[in-house]
């Protein structure tokens, strides 16, 4: 079984290499055919589409940003080339680079004005921008050539005879491969992990200290750069730039390709576009039936292969990674000293004073004061709806306070939740917020991104700085996994592990951010005895290292031998505080949980 799996993977790699070789030598292969330049054109346009679809995949597939302006970006890239290279006489390569930069700037401007818009509305803004851009180009006068567009766009060096059509074709293939590598390097780096984190849950990403807005700008910018580049190449290939390139109808092929290949997979866009190009070629000359066929393929794909080809393969038992065997003694290699820096045990890390949070008329939190100290396990319990989660959201700034104050490490806590996270308060939510489609290791690495001191460019070009930081992070992540008894599962998709392991993984990911205060919202729900044991050990280790672990629990049994102090909340107020034993015997607590009101007379 394992060997079939490996064999299949090797076959896939060999197939890919063969495909690349075929693409490179394609001009020679078709030389004897009746119409070589036509075939070359067909493949070249498909290559542009593939680059654009990679760009779409980065923002939609990985970033979860609904973009309906990729055709517009493509058009902008084309005009950039046409204007700079043809009209201004820039060097062609420089103009191509400028097309990418202009694409990025265009994208960044759009996302900057629409950061407040939620998902559907963001899509609509991009649609509107696309239409505005097309109108602008149509009425751009001499600069854009109006409705007719600009003609005579040539490849850099072609008119002067420095490069043949085949030569430029090879340049395009190279750029496609580079685009794929850029995508891959980005996705496997901290940048990509943050992008996926944001896609899966903006809330959790924020809890890990990621600034959602800043990161969205970056993702869309990268996507815009690739789209601009693809547009520039397309215009060179077809020889003109015209507003109609931006038409959403022309974008159908990207969507079909992306969904057919698999949204949010690396190879999906390329494979999908290649398939669509083949189908497109077979039905050439049928005019309007083309859209009909493509549209039908798209619908059928969604019904039959909802994850696309690559996505389905990855989900199948052949394509999904397995856990590896842990070598004897391997765990010893990963020793990790948990020691929270710059805190002394018993020091007050966070202090809340008279915190009040009202929602309309509901007094969810009604004047709670609490202290979290270094090195303690602090339990917060209370019946359903007593305000525990609201309190935590208020302390970590997910909710604005109605009144009261939160002091973090001696200063007033920042108003932005991701900054609170960066200052050392990491929370794990009640509902599992794992990045399910990402590997176990990558989940942990996402928690570490704050330590990664490399830029997007380091990641794209795999500079020594990136490689060094990455290998250090991976070693640390493995050490953390080892601490939770999860070594050997690094490559598994997080969605495929058991519920208890997911909860543990979430805790580990949170620990990876090196918090001073770790807040766990009902971590024990649904855990097996063994997993419960691992969790207990982990929490003890963390507290021993000086971390403050805040546990929100319904289950006092779990807290019993773990918590140093327990705060009991009812109806938004603290009704008891003390050791677990004291709390369990407290009559008010029993009443709060079981309801001591004796209505037996009234109900009789």
């Amino acid at each position: 079984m394992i060997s079939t799996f490996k064999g299949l993977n090797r076959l896939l790699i060999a197939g890919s290499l063969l495909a690349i070789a075929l693409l490179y030598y394609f001009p020679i292969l078709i030389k004897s055919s009746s119409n070589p330049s036509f075939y070359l054109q067909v493949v070249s346009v498909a290559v542009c589409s593939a680059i654009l679809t990679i760009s779409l995949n980065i923002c939609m597939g990985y970033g979860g940003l609904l973009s309906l302006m990729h055709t517009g970006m493509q058009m902008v890239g084309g005009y950039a080339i046409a204007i700079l290279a043809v009209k201004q006489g820039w060097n062609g390569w420089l103009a191509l680079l400028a097309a990418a930069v202009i694409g990025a700037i265009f994208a960044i401007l759009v996302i900057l004005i629409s950061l407040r818009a939620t998902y559907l509305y963001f899509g609509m803004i991009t649609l509107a921008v696309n239409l505005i851009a097309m109108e602008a180009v149509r009425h751009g006068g001499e600069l854009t050539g109006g409705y007719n567009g600009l003609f005579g766009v040539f490849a850099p060096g072609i008119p002067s005879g420095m490069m043949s059509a085949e030569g430029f074709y090879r340049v395009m293939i190279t750029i496609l491969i580079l685009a794929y590598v850029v995508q891959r390097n980005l996705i496997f780096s901290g940048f990509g992990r943050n992008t996926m984190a944001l896609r899966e849950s903006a809330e959790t990403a924020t809890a890990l200290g990621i600034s959602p807005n800043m990161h969205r700008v970056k993702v869309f910018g990268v996507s815009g750069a690739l789209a601009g580049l693809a547009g520039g190449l397309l215009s060179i290939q077809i020889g003109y730039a015209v507003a109609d390139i931006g038409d959403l109808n022309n974008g159908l092929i990207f969507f079909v390709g992306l969904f057919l290949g698999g949204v949010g997979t690396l190879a999906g866009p390329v494979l999908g576009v290649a398939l669509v190009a083949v189908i497109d070629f077979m039905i050439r000359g049928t005019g309007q039936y083309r859209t009909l066929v493509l549209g039908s393929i798209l619908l059928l794909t969604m019904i039959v292969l909802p994850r696309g080809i690559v996505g389905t393969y990855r989900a199948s038992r052949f394509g999904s990674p397995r856990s590896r065997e842990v070598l004897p003694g391997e765990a010893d290699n990963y020793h990790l000293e948990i020691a929270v820096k710059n805190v002394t045990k018993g020091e007050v890390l966070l202090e809340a004073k008279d915190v009040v949070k009202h929602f309309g008329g509901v007094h969810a939190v009604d004047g709670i004061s609490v202290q979290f100290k270094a090195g303690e396990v602090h339990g917060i319990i209370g019946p359903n709806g007593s305000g525990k989660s609201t309190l935590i959201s208020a302390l970590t700034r997910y909710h604005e306070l109605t009144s009261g104050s939160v002091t973090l490490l001696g200063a007033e806590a920042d108003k932005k939740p991701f900054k609170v996270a960066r200052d050392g308060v990491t929370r794990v939510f009640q509902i599992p917020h794992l990045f399910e489609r990402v590997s176990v290791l990558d989940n942990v690495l996402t928690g570490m991104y704050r330590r990664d001191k490399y830029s997007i460019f380091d990641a794209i070009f795999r500079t020594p700085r990136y490689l060094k930081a990455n290998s250090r992070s991976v070693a640390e992540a493995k050490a953390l996994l080892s601490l939770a008894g999860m070594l050997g599962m690094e490559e598994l998709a997080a969605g495929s592990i058991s519920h208890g392991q997911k909860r543990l993984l979430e805790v580990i990911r949170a620990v990876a951010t090196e918090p001073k205060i770790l807040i766990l919202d009902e971590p024990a729900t649904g855990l097996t005895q063994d997993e419960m044991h691992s969790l207990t050990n982990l929490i003890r280790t963390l507290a021993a290292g000086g971390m403050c672990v805040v546990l929100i629990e319904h289950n006092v049994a779990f807290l019993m031998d773990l918590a140093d102090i327990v705060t009991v909340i009812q109806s938004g107020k603290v009704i008891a505080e003390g050791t677990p034993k004291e709390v369990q015997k407290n009559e008010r607590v029993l009443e709060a949980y079981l309801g001591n009101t004796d209505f037996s007379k009234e109900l009789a």
Partner: protein
Amino acid sequence: MSLQIWIDGLFAGSVFAIIALSMTIVYQPTRIMNFAQGEGFILGAALGYQMVGVWKWPLIQSVVVLIIAAALMGFIMERMVMLPVQLSGSKFAWIIATLAAAMIFQSAFNIKYVNVTFSYFDIIEKDISIFGAKLSIQKLIVILMMIVVFIINDQFLKRTLWGRSIRAIAHNPDTSTILGIPTKPVIKLAFITGTIVIALVGFLATPVIIVAPAAGLFFTIQGFTAAIIGGVGSPKGAVVGGLIIGILDSVVRAWLGGTWGLFSTFFVLAVILILKPNGFFGKRVEGR
């Protein structure tokens, strides 16, 4: 500024408002903004051209056949959109599915009508004069239709049990289910009524507006713009949004020239989304 411009704006605004209303009808129980909605407009225009223009059918007969055809289209569209949405786990399934449906219908129209612009008849050619401004009876009918559709839709949603059920499903599908409200037939009904409404406005407005077989997406986008300015899911918002872009377009066109109309529309859209991200009457929209 002359009154004529405002009257023309009111007409265009009514068209957009009805399109936006038909989208709202689909959106309410499904939370889907249907990219294929504008194809219903083309259906109205195309069948109008075919039945009234080519076959010279009487008006009533044409309208009846149109309603049946639109109902059928709505039925097919529901399957084309909801089946992939239910089967695909993707957050973007609805947009891709509706976009694909739009493309399929659009190419069907393109195949049937090559190089045809739908223009066929004026129901009543007479103009009436209001303070010197002209308003053709046909434009008046469209404006009245907008008012009637709004009122009927509003009353249906507020006064009938099925209408209230739609609002209930829009608010909470699970709770609706435990009350015994069948959500799937309601969704089918929404697609069918939505398509009938937009097909009717396509039929009535086309002789005044120039419509090409491939223009469905344009009308979809106009409808979206109106709905988003007003607030997605709100019938009142659809009307207000539609009138805003219609009148704005008309006024700006007269003032700055043809092309600035479309600019102004999308510009207003962008400004509103930045200042009031949920539109005038809308509620926050989250991912499905």
